[in-house]
């Protein structure tokens, strides 16, 4: 009798402890269910119908027709290629630029805090404001970009109007907009590079580049990988910068998958078709993620040896 009370109390406490994790996870799960799974399921359903924007629920089931149309149209493949080019350019550009900036900022230079603040601005300003500034910069008549090219003797360029330059301009602006993120994350990783390792490399006769290659780079590679993954996924889904700069033009040269989803849905009112494009875009993101984790795992296995 005397031991029963504490035991049952303990049992009750154990039961509470067993339920607690589900309560915590449950809240997140419900949130995800409502705001991710339901829309995604609806999107998946739409992609098999001929729903239109004006009558979203009145679509008829059309089977794989939307997908069939896409996979046989050149427009989809060129949109896919644009997405890949844009993503590659943005990821490589921002990683390169961000890493260089981070390494430069990690040196003990005068006014480091000021530079860091200045270089973080692109990431901090709203996309709309940044894009407006770039539209002025790229203005054919009076933009800074064209004044510079004129001064260099290259002559005025249609930065956002020339099909040859559209994707390049959009990529440049995107890199400018997102590289501070890479910079900040790499800067944080650089703080963790053991000072004695760098000193050891210096004593061993390594010059600055070799110290970077032997000590710093291997240390920040895991960080760079995860940043590269984030940058890739974000680039695949980036909308606002591209849409505000060119709206997918000139002549569809910046028409990435996300842009074409928007255009299909809200300009052509083809909700079903748009949903199908969106689903294929989702597959692309998933492929990237899976490839990343597979390569990460094989690297980890190599490391363990």
């Amino acid at each position: 009798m005397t031991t029963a009370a504490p035991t049952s109390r303990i049992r009750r406490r154990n039961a509470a402890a067993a339920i607690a994790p589900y309560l915590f996870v449950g809240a997140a799960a419900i949130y995800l269910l409502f705001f991710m799974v339901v829309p995604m399921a609806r999107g998946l359903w739409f992609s098999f119908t001929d729903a239109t924007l004006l009558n979203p629920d009145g679509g008829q089931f059309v089977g794989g027709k939307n997908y069939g149309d896409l996979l046989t149209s050149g427009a989809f493949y060129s949109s896919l290629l644009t997405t890949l080019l844009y993503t590659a350019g943005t990821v490589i550009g921002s990683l390169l630029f961000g890493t260089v900036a981070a390494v430069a900022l990690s040196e003990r230079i005068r006014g480091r805090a000021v530079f860091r603040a200045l270089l973080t601005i692109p990431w901090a300003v709203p996309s709309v404001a940044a894009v407006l500034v770039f539209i002025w910069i790229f203005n054919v008549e009076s933009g800074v970009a064209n004044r510079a090219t004129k001064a260099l003797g290259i002559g005025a360029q249609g930065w956002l109007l020339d099909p040859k330059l559209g994707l390049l301009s959009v990529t440049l602006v995107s890199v400018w907009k997102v590289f501070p993120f890479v910079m900040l994350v790499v800067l944080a990783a650089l703080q963790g590079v053991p000072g004695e390792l760098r000193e050891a490399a210096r004593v061993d006769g390594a010059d600055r580049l070799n110290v970077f290659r032997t000590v710093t780079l291997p240390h920040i590679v895991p960080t760079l990988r995860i940043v590269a993954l984030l940058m890739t996924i974000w680039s695949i889904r980036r909308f606002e910068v591209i849409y505000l700069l060119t709206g997918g033009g000139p002549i569809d040269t910046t028409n990435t998958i996300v842009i074409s989803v928007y255009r299909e849905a809200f300009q052509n009112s083809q909700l079903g078709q748009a949903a199908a494009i969106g689903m294929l875009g989702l597959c692309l993101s998933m492929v990237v993620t899976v490839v990343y984790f597979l390569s990460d795992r094989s690297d980890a296995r190599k490391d363990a040896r």
Partner: protein
Amino acid sequence: MPALTFSSVSKSFGSSEVISDFTAEIPDREFLVLLGPSGCGKSTMLRMIAGLIDISSGDLLFDGRRVNELEPRERNIAFVFQSYALYPHLTVRANIAFPLLMDRFRWWQHIPGIWSIERRRAMRLPEVARKVAEIAEIMELTPLLDRRPKTLSGGQRQRVALARALVRDPSIYLLDEPLSNLDAKLRSQMRIEISTMYQKVGKTFVYVTHDQVEAMTMGTRIVLLDGGIIQQQGTPTEIYERPANAFVARFIGSPAMNLIPVEVAHGGVRIPDAGILPVSDAPVAAGQSVTLGVRAEKIALAASGETDSTGTSRSSSASAPRRSWGSGSGMRRPRRSVPARCATSTTRASPVRSTSPSAIRARSA
């Protein structure tokens, strides 16, 4: 190879002075030990010699040439770090070979792609492979050559760090507590390895340790630091037998030197509750209070009532305010810890009546 000259070398981090006025003259081919308690500035001193941190003021000379501004690699040194500092993504073999590869590096190999090919080729060069194999054999690392540092134990890592420093042919070897993480057996073995290496290469070694046994057995010259200030410099025997002040007397020797407050009397010193210990030519006038320092091994039991002690006093011009009496004899350079021969006789009364036949020196400092 070079002789090291330190003239008033000082180092401050911000407003705190870590090394002050370090002046020493180290001849070529010495095995210099920087000894001192934790935090006294030994590593800082070593880093200044290596050129890893700037010297705040004063000059450092290698063979008469000022090297304050030289980069570490221009000083031709090898360095063993306190925390090993192994390259984590390289194998043990590549770690050891790294200094050799850097010696062969030419600037144009920075062109992307070139070095990765060149590196592999250099690793296979017979002279590189042979040197790595040789040093790995000495350090007993041969079975570990293809492992990564993080799969090694602390002691194994330390040996890799040693191997990496020893593989090259520098003119100065700088070692920062290279044996602190080894077990007793391996430590004495590595102590011998390093000493042998020192005998063989005939270069200048600067060895940081807080272990007086290492200092005494390996060093040909010791600089004892406390709080960034040189307490004494000299050969191990000098430091053991003639400590410059009470700090040195307490720091060196195991057990530490007995420091007994005494009063100078005619013909000797009066030990409270114990009588007079004869000391010839006391350095200060009778009636003064001084400290008597006696090494435990100088004390032996004698038959009751009998005293058999001699002492000579020694003056020194050192200006430490503390008075101390040093005791010592012409004994050999001490090896390892001194056997406590008279452990039972170190009660307050007995040591006085029964000191060993060798001389007791008294000093006022």
